[in-house]
């Protein structure tokens, strides 16, 4: 039977290295995934994920269990990942909130949902798109990658996103919208579902 997180955390707090290792093994892939989504470089994501566990170990005694262990470790990982790309952000033009680069009226809405059909969860195209998503995500500006990962992988609410990123709720919604539009456009392009106005056929 699998030992629950709180028991492992308590054992790790008491100095049980085996318990801490069990926590690492349990969450390593998800933590790496969170980091990868934000930093996009696999080696940097690996380093960020290891550093996240290092921080957890250092501050384990301070963890009171107000949130779940998984929430705590994902939060640390995403913080570290955002810090890691901060320097990159400063040197990139994509830090600008590009509110006007998506044509609201002519961006091929519905193409993906039509192609994916009535049962997208079981759809072959969906699996193919998931395979393409990593590349699509990597094409996005870092501010869009991070908000998509925080929303869809960490599951943060608008309020939590606003607090985490230090922006207003309206900016959260706007940034998420643009991130989704760009991601959908990239996916549609990969899938050969050209968006209207982009020169291809729907």
């Amino acid at each position: 039977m699998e030992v629950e997180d709180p028991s492992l955390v308590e054992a790790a707090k008491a100095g049980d290295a085996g318990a801490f290792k069990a926590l690492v093994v349990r969450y390593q892939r998800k933590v790496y995934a969170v980091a990868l989504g934000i930093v996009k470089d696999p080696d940097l994501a690996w380093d960020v994920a290891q550093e996240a566990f290092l921080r957890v170990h250092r501050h384990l005694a301070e963890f009171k269990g107000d949130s779940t262990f998984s929430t705590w470790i994902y939060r640390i990982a995403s913080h570290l990942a955002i810090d890691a790309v901060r320097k990159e952000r400063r040197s990139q033009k994509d830090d600008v909130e590009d509110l006007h680069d998506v044509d609201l009226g002519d961006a091929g809405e519905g193409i993906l949902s039509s192609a994916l059909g009535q049962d997208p969860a079981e759809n072959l195209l969906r699996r193919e798109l998931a395979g393409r998503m990593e590349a699509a995500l990597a094409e996005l500006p870092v501010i869009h990658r991070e908000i998509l990962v925080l929303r869809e992988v960490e599951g943060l609410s608008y309020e939590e996103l606003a607090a985490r990123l230090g922006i207003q709720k309206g900016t959260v919604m706007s940034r998420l919208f643009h991130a989704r539009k760009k991601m959908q456009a990239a996916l549609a392009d990969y899938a050969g579902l050209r968006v209207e106005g982009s020169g291809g056929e729907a």
Partner: protein
Amino acid sequence: MKDCAIYRPMIGSQPGELSPAEAAGLQAHLGGCGGCRAFQADVLATEGLVAQALERAAARRDFAPFVDGVMTRISAARRPGLLERLTRQLRLHPRLVVSGALVPLLAAALALYVRSNSGADFADAHTLELHSEGSTTIIQSSDGPVLLLDDDDNGES
């Protein structure tokens, strides 16, 4: 278009994230806007794809060395400083540490002693006077005469 700019960013919200007024406005807008309904359908259709893609990327990677890497970094981060290590050793092996500490102290004291004595020898060298009387050599030092007898005399006396 103006309403789309207002309401489209609200698409994809979870229950409770919009104010009642925002939620009502969005519903009313969706009822009359095919473009926004289509965007909503795309959001729903692609929901979870980001997490799925990243988990697939993580699944492709070999995580066998990950945990050891973490533990190594923890050990390295926890390596104590010199003072902490000495304090810890003092607690664990007080006699050994005191003995160990005495060795360099004794060595330093010996070096100082030798150096000061050799300095005195050099100083004394200027005041030494040598005289030979038969097989006996007399050295006049600042501490008085020193008689050096050769082996024959020494053997007879």
